[in-house]
């Protein structure tokens, strides 16, 4: 099936990329920047507020409100900063890279609009280190913009990350950008008051910033009409897992999850049956196939189903996957990425992983099932940032919804899939910072 909603983020690309400035200008690019610069910052923020645009990084915080929290320059006499979070690393999520590759100018135009709104002349784009092609596209786009003197007084610095999921958390990102280990800060103070170099800072996701350009282009009121109540606008959904057509799909909020998977996504690969869906990135609560059938892709529907829209990363999982293996692999990820600052996360993620591995290996006891819950409860809500919570929440959701499968591991003294699970023997990342033993294959 096709959707009648026009593309907003990817408008004008016709499936390709607008990486030459002439092509972007021919599609109307930078007209809205000129218009926006004639408006007062308050007018820009009012337009964003009218649009109901909410953050696309995962927290869904209203973008206009976030900008309005940045004090006026006369209130805090320090430079103001716009920091763009392009450190996309939530497993399942790959939308920001496609935005940077295909509409780099719409994204950079959004940076200049946001800078104008918060009265900043200093923009830092923190781009994930693994995104080399995307970095090069932005370098080229910025060169083209400088040649046309589009930046005005604003400087835009591209800062490359170096491989750390935690730097997608905004305060860890700021620490990293300041030249420290990427470890989250206590809040308050919030970045709007004391962010980069202890100065007022707005931190926004790539898709939020790019959508801001569209808001200014079509007007906040028009933008607000797209999507559904409490979830305005379009969203770039990343679809992956056991589907035929994985990829990014820009759709209005409120689109049925089942249509994304079964129609646009071409259904489950190899004629298998859908078992579960992770709806908003690896940190979100899993949905059973039956639950997934009922929800639509927007804030209210997913919260109503006990989960979250997160980073809009939909991972479809078919019936070959052992949920204990899935839990162990997800937990390994969070263990690997824990920055180590808060003990419940640093120690708890390792405990969760060890217990899950024990259950998977057939060494688990009934007491381990209780211990799993107990450890998860001791992580959740007890750390500076949500990394550890994400592990606990994700793992507990698999445990709650597929408890029979966990129990079968205990009862049968091993994995009921007997080596046939799609994640069987999957290797966790191999560290390069220590002289580690080569992983042992079973």
């Amino acid at each position, binding site marked *: 099936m096709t959707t009648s909603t026009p593309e907003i983020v990817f408008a004008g690309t016709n499936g390709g990329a607008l990486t030459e400035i002439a092509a972007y200008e021919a599609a109307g690019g930078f007209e809205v920047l000129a218009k926006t610069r004639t408006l007062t910052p308050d007018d820009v923020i009012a337009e964003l507020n009218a649009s109901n645009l909410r953050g696309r990084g995962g927290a869904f915080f209203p973008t206009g409100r976030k900008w309005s929290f940045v004090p006026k320059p006369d209130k805090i006499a320090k430079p103001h900063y716009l920091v763009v979070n392009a450190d996309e690393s939530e497993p399942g999520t790959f939308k920001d890279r496609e935005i940077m590759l295909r509409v780099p100018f719409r994204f950079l135009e959004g940076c200049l609009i946001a800078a104008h709104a918060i009265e900043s002349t200093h923009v830092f784009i923190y781009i994930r280190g693994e995104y080399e092609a995307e970095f090069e596209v932005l370098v080229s786009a910025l060169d083209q913009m400088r040649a046309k003197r589009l930046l005005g007084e604003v400087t835009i610095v591209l800062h490359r990350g170096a491989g750390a999921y935690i730097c997608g958390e905004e305060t860890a990102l700021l620490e990293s950008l300041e030249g420290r280990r990427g470890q989250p800060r206590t809040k308050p103070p919030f970045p709007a008051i004391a962010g980069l170099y202890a100065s007022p800072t707005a931190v926004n996701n790539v898709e939020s910033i790019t959508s801001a350009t569209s808001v200014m282009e079509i007007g906040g009121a028009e933008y607000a009409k797209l999507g559904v109540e409490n979830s305005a606008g379009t969203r770039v959904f990343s679809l992956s897992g056991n589907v035929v057509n994985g*990829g990014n799909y820009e759709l209005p909020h409120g689109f049925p999850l089942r249509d994304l998977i079964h129609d646009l996504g071409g259904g489950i690969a190899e004629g298998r049956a859908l078992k579960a869906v992770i709806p908003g990135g690896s940190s979100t609560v899993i949905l059973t196939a039956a639950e997934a059938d009922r929800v639509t892709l927007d804030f209210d529907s997913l919260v109503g189903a006990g989960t979250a829209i997160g980073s809009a990363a939909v991972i479809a999982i078919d019936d070959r996957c052992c949920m204990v293996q899935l839990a162990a*692999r997800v937990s390994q990820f969070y263990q690997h990425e824990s920055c180590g600052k808060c003990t419940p996360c640093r120690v708890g993620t390792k405990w969760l992983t060890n217990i899950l591995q024990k259950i998977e290996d057939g060494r688990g006891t009934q007491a381990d099932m209780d211990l799993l819950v107990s450890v998860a409860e001791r992580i959740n809500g007890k750390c500076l940032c949500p990394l550890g919570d994400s592990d606990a929440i994700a793992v507990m959701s698999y445990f709650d919804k597929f408890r029979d499968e966990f129990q079968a591991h205990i009862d049968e003294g091993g994995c009921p899939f007997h080596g046939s699970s799609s994640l069987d023997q999957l*290797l966790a990342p191999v560290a390069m910072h220590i002289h580690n033993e080569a992983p042992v294959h079973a």
Partner: protein
Amino acid sequence: MSALYDEIQEIRAQYPESLSAVMPALQLAQERSGGWLPEQAFRDVADALDLTPAYCLSIASFYDMFRLEPVGQHLIEVCTNISCGLNGAQQVVEAFESELGLRAGETTDDFTLRTVECLGGCGWATVVAINNRHRLRVQADDVAGIVAELRSLELEVTDDHLDA
């Protein structure tokens, strides 16, 4: 002063505070040192930014893309996170292991093979980063061809070297 020192000063000038330049400076030093950070690289970066080598090491050891041990001429990194895992990443890892005669985590002069966390290409699984360039939809059957391609690149480099 060295070219690296001068280039780091240029990077430093982009930031209001010079400490911010430590990551890009380490990235540059790594690029100039064959893809990893030997002790000398930490001394060079520290000199250029008025830091201690120990501080620079504390940064490098936090981030996955800084390498504290030598890497092979070609760095092969296979994503084994959820979506790649569901699409046969483990078979891709094993194919590289058998084709290269290495296990994940090991290094020879020519190759380093490792498994990594999500590379952000989940819809195009399995993603394999080869010298930081992402190959998409890699299957176990593709591995022999990729390795042959990298080995032929190596020969070209060697030939050029001999000609010179």
